[in-house]
């Protein structure tokens, strides 16, 4: 009951109903003889917009009108997992700038690295009936109901970076399997060269999409390469926690080859711990993601290598997806897609060469 009311209020899935209505009105006016139109066929660009997509031919002005008319006043809401780190900031800043240019209303909130709060934050954004929800998901399952709920209300959901088991209209993230495999292979090679085999893993949450995939990929590589995982803990995407974990592991493990972890802004904590223990260079730090944090640490020699899995490209990709959904008029939840970005492993030799690496929060 409750949900249905909302479903009929939301705009995208209404198109079908509206079309029928337009048809009925048109037929009625025809019967009354007061209309010269020959039926409900689209006669202008704006009409086509309701149906989805541009007509076969249109001049550039018409295209611009179409885009602006379609997107004008549409609402995009972004439930951010955290803020204050290059990763989240670069996305948010991209959204703010891009959506403003497109005339889209943009709102966001910030869960401050609490997966449970994120659900409530996202739910609150949904309550305001946006057209698109961008969700920086933090847990494979906890937002599953929420995603389904939003789609049922006619809201497109785009999940960014950390996947959910409930499939959204689009997942925009990294090609994590191969990317993390590449990172682990790089690490295994370094360790083998040093003659060490003890490795400590610092994942993000235990149950976020990236960590689950990354840990699987890393372990597979380490097993194949004969490495030995001596520690596996969750740093909760928090540099302080990573620092504490790394400090403890360093005290316990004499022959540690290095740390491998889920995120540079977290692994900087581990890098600092290694540095403070006077083991920089001796104990390697390998991380997923390659923002300015990773680049600076690599240049300083406290981190060894990072895999740039395309974070910089997510913002623009999502802006593109949003436009695509809103212009296409496909009802929310009808197609479930996942879009992966390019990855590159960087170290001190190539860190400035990789496009998209060393980004900052303001790299728009």
């Amino acid at each position: 009951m409750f949900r249905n009311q909302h479903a009929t209020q939301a705009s995208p899935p209404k198109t079908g109903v509206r079309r029928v209505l337009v048809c009925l009105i048109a037929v009625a006016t025809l019967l009354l003889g007061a209309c010269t139109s020959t039926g409900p066929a689209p006669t202008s660009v704006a009409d086509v917009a309701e149906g989805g997509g541009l007509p076969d031919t249109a001049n550039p002005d018409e295209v611009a009108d179409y885009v602006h008319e379609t997107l004008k006043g549409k609402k995009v809401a972004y439930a951010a997992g955290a803020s204050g780190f290059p990763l989240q900031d670069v996305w948010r800043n991209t959204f703010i700038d891009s959506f403003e240019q497109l005339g889209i209303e943009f709102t966001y909130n910030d869960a401050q690295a609490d997966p449970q709060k994120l659900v409530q934050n996202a739910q609150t954004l949904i309550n305001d009936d946006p057209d698109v929800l961008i969700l920086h998901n933090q847990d494979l399952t906890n937002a599953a109901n929420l995603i389904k709920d939003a789609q049922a209300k006619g809201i497109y959901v785009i999940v960014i970076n950390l996947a959910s088991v409930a499939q959204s209209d689009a997942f925009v993230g990294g090609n994590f399997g191969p990317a993390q495999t590449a990172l682990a292979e790089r690490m295994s090679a370094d360790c083998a060269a040093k003659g060490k085999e003890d490795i400590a893993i610092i994942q993000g949450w235990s149950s976020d999409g990236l960590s689950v995939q990354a840990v699987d990929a890393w372990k597979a590589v380490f097993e194949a390469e004969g490495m030995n995982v001596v520690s596996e803990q969750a740093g909760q995407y928090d540099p302080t926690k990573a620092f504490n974990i790394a400090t403890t592991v360093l005290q316990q493990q004499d022959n540690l080859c290095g740390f491998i972890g889920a995120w540079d802004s977290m692994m900087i904590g581990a890098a600092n711990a290694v540095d403070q223990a006077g083991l920089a260079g001796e104990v390697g730090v390998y991380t997923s993601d390659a923002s300015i944090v990773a680049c600076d640490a690599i240049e300083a020699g406290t981190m060894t290598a990072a895999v740039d899995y395309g974070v910089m490209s997510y913002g623009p990709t999502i802006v593109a997806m949003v436009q695509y959904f809103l212009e296409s008029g496909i009802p929310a939840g009808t197609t479930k897609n996942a879009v992966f970005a390019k990855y590159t492993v960087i170290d001190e030799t190539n860190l400035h060469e990789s496009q998209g690496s060393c980004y900052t929060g303001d790299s728009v």
Partner: protein
Amino acid sequence: MVRQVDGYSLSDRGFSSRFSVQRSLAELLGKRWMDAIAPVILLIAVIVYFAVTTPSFTNASNLVTVSQTLAEYGFLALAMTIVISGGGIDLSVGGIYAVTNAVAVILFKIHQWPTLVVLVATLVLGSLMGLFNGVIISVLRTRPFITTLVTLLLFRSIATYLDNEYSPTVAMSSHTDFIWEQMTVGRLLFLPPALFILLVSVVVAQIIITRTRFGWQIIAMGSSRTAARRAGMKLSRLGVQTYVLSGLLSGFAGFLVATRLSSSSQTTGAGYEFVALTAVIIGGINLYGGRGTAIKALLGATIVAFIYQGLLVQGFDANAYNVVLAIALLVFAAFDIKYGKNRGKVIQKIFLVPSSLKLGPLEDINAEGSVWKPNRKLTDARPIGLGQLDGPEDVILDEQGRIYCGDRRGWIWRFEPDDLDHGEVFCRVGGLPLGLAWDAEKNLVVCVGGMGVYSIDQDGNATAVSTQTDRNPFALRDTSAIRLADDLDIAPDGKIYYSDASTRFDGIEYNFDVMEARPNGRVMVFDPATGKTSTIIKNMSFPNGVCVAHDGQSVLICSTILSRVDRLWIAGEKEGTLEPFLENLPGLPDNINRAGNGEYWLAFAGMRTPTFDLALQDAGFRRRMLKEIPQDEWLIANMNTSCVVRVSENGEVLESLWDETQMNHALITSMREKDGYLYLGGLVNNRMGRYTLPDAATRTDPVQALAQDGGGARNG
């Protein structure tokens, strides 16, 4: 059904002085539920503020979102409330919440147990964790704060371990069942079921806390451990029980979040001890124990949940929430202390509200030829029980001539007619024994100030007859208890008419009532046939002496403050009406009793004076006096004049008797005539007196007990 008479019109006060804002405020502050007024105002302010500034705050979806968090906060706040009320604290609620959440998710998602079995397991686990806390604190006698802080860390470590170990597997499981699903997406009146479970639990907890022995014991333990121990409570067991309950409720909150999110995380419940504590304090629950209810916990949790949701809707992040919460916590903790400390003082300061009262012109009793002229007729009345008695307010005799009187120590004395110097304590009834009367079955019925009306059989065993009446649903103050039963008499049909002199002050505080000079008293009638006590005259100014007329058709009722006696018709065509018997008396009438020859004896507690008459007119003067000078320096009504008058059936004062010296019978509050003697009693005297009536030979004795057989007070 007794028809009520309004005694308000007996004085010439205006309609508006029926109400007093100050008095209402004092009465309001005296209400326990007033502790919750600040949180209620805050809640309304929060809702109004967010509703006005952010229209989307009030949409239905937000209500659902907020009620989901509220359900979890609510259970944690309840858990905290129970422990805090018992004088402890449970900082581990967030830890229990996290562990039970993780275990519930593991059992359901991985082991695929049915939801209800998962629920039971979660509750058992929560209770066990609470038991762990309780045993350490109550049995090993550790400090609750430190102990639960340590167990919080312990529980959080367990939760982190469980999350690390199981959550990747949990995340991959898509197992669900009907009940689990309904807990999340089901709606009852558009709201999640969890909210209704919370509301039911709050009602149950409220009943347990406020209406059961267990709840009272928790509150008693929280108020004073020493007193509770001396009252025989088993504090260790009780303490353990509060922690077990806390664990159980936190466990239920853990179950709720498990069904809502189907996942665990290392941040689950992090900082929730702070949220629960804030909710509890904002709700007005005393942090030091002894004061707490479930409703207040719900109120606090609602405020906390609404603030979070409101800030979220406005686009503030969690930091702003923490700041707002911290400020609210600080303000309310300070308010709680100030309020708890000063409430009593404020009530004390404003509770007394003097009103203006203008009495008629004062007759000069010393005028030559006045029937009132003081004399020494009673000075030589023979003392009875001299030195044994302390405050025999009323006196009565039985058929064998034995003399009975009350005593301020809560005793009833009996003197044999042949030994007036040595009496025996007939009954220790307690309270402040005042008016006495016989019922048809020769039971001595006594008004006991502070207790009500009691009946004492011939063996000296007391039973309560009338101690309460129906509560007036429109009055702020609960006046269902009989506060100051003063004097009584029993009509031929066995109905007991008695005065409840004040519904605001106790016997020892009667001076306060005089200072207020408001119609605070009432006249009650107890019907032995139904066992019910009803008010027959309301709004009466200090009704005191009560006496059924010789013919049994009416009751004479003295109003001490108004210096008058009125006749209430209880039979005949004038039944249910009030008419003046004696007006504008020069003194403050106390008890009135039947005299021989169809006359009445009337005793005066004191005489009116021009100064006090003037003081009564000036409410402002008395207000300043009460406020500014100590009680023993107040200008009070005159007392100790030992005046007794004889009055005819039509209200003519025939004779006055005095102990002008005030040496022997300083204060006479009551008297009885029997066999040519007049027996005297006085509220603060150390004796009774026996005065020989000069015209004894020509006097016929009054009937001591009008009540007919079958009309006994115990028949009800």
